[in-house]
């Protein structure tokens, strides 16, 4: 038996404090923020270190300092950054992933959008899950909107558009069958109401499915992006992190152009559009943020 097992484990706070002191880790954190706009705050540095170590083991690199060089100097730095980002965002996809964000959508965003449309005889709501992967986010929106069907959304036509580049993901999304991992935030009542058993997994019911339209779209395809007009809400979570700054600017500009006045763009919970776009402005909800396209275009920064 090795001695290491007998040493008491460091408390998590201690480990957290140690990680937040590590200058190489902070450098890697800042690099990720700079290239991908995704931030690991101080209390998440321990997590970041774990993910870096996984990659270091794979590359046979022994120090964080040397791994930083892999991310900045090596010939495969771009690929390595993608691998690391994959490690960081892996397992992020599930139903009802970001509760504060969804609360903001339900309690503030949708009522505000509907109020702005109250003068219209025919009210229509268009939401877009951009980079929908295997469909959890889009179906979450559908379930949330179904719950409001007898309330705020009475007499409102709702359309959810979900797009992804990856055909295999889209096939899985269209099949709409999910295992326990994807359903970990879904309680028994909701499972009963919106899902049916499919072997040892659960399938979304047809009424949920019929609300979502899946299609293949490359967010970088300028020609097709111009046709995604008339959006009220866009969710684009952990997708833009794989684009470089120039492409990200272009994609976000498309989002801006495709949104109606008084509408919102939601990004991943650790994502930021700082330096990417000045037309949107950042607004705050309890525990969440979003980017608002205002009533009239405001030029420049705040």
């Amino acid at each position: 038996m090795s001695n290491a097992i007998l040493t008491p484990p460091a408390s998590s706070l201690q480990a957290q404090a140690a990680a937040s002191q590590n200058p190489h880790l902070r450098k890697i954190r800042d690099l990720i923020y700079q290239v991908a706009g995704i931030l690991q705050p101080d209390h998440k540095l321990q997590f970041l270190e774990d993910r870096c170590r996984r990659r270091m083991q794979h590359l046979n690199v022994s120090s964080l300092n040397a791994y930083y060089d892999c991310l900045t100097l090596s010939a495969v730095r771009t690929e390595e950054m993608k691998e690391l980002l994959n490690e960081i965002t892996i397992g992020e996809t599930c139903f009802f992933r970001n509760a504060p964000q969804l609360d903001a959508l339900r309690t503030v965003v949708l009522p505000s959008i509907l109020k702005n449309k109250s003068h219209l005889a025919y009210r229509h709501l268009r939401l877009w899950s951009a980079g929908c992967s295997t469909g959890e986010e889009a179906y979450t929106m559908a379930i949330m909107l179904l719950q409001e069907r007898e309330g705020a959304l009475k007499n409102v036509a709702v359309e959810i558009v979900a797009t992804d580049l990856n055909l295999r993901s889209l096939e899985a999304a269209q099949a709409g069958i999910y295992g326990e991992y994807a359903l970990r935030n879904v309680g028994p009542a909701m499972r009963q109401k919106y899902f049916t058993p499919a072997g040892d997994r659960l399938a979304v019911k047809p009424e949920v499915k019929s609300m979502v339209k899946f299609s293949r779209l490359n967010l970088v395809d300028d020609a097709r992006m111009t046709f995604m007009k008339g959006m009220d809400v866009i969710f684009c979570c952990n997708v833009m992190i794989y684009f470089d700054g120039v492409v990200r600017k272009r994609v976000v500009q498309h989002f801006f152009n495709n949104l109606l006045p008084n509408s919102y763009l939601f990004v991943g919970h650790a994502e930021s559009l700082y330096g990417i776009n000045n037309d949107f402005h950042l607004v705050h909800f309890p525990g969440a943020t979003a980017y608002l396209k205002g009533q009239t275009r405001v030029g420049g920064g705040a």
Partner: protein
Amino acid sequence: MSQARERIERKLAEIGSLPTIPTLLVPLLQHLCEPAEDVSIDRVVKIVSQDPSLAAQCLRMVNSPLFGVRYAVETVRGAVMGLGVNRVRQIAMACSLLKAFPARSAVGVRALWAHSLAVAMVAEKFAQQAGYAEPEQAYSAGLLHDLGILVALTACPDEFEKAAEAASREHRALYLCERELNGFDHGEIGEMLARRWQLPGPYHHALRYHHEVEQAPAHRCLVAIVGLCDILCRLRDLGYGFEEIGFVDLAAEPAWLLAANELPKMRDFDLARFTLELDAFIAEVEQSVAALFELV
């Protein structure tokens, strides 16, 4: 002055025993609010040593797992060096204020302390990043900004609770509900206490105007920083323990516009990143508040 002011004065006179200023607070505010490089360790050690419970608190904190020191710290000097001036200041101010306002009505006092501590830490960070010349002063102003609530909890707990309930129920700002129901708000009460205690001028304004920055006659940058950080904390699980804000467009807040106009580094201020970084404070604030309440 206004009728409301007379009412509070009467109210404060009624209870007769408005807390006297904690003896430590004056030297602490004067000395520890100076830029960190001007603060002498010897003087801090002296101030801390004057108060046995404060000294004990510092020793307990420095030996807690949060700091992960490998050997036991046994002297006040060791504790001050290990904790750093900032944390000593935090402990000392909170300790002395907690003694002045014993938590007799348990109503959210703990949440209020957590909130005050959070605003202090966030305000200091904001001040540093936005280029405000005195981040230490922003810290102290943040810690003290809701002093008026502590007074209200002591002086008129029923009235205050009614206002807090209304704010929570209607998701409205607390100070507006206080004004509507009681005719005065915690800003006004806080300012009156600050005057009575003869705290330095900038704190009067931070206490009084943090919810209505544009009304502040002076020290508006400090007031704006406290006001903004107060909002940010209330939105990131570092609030009063009840929900009152649903949506904020900071860019449209008078406090933001004022800070943007007057602080040198606001042009490049990354609000998205700053917001995400706040979440790292939650555990630290909880830990500090737990430690504080354990001792007092």
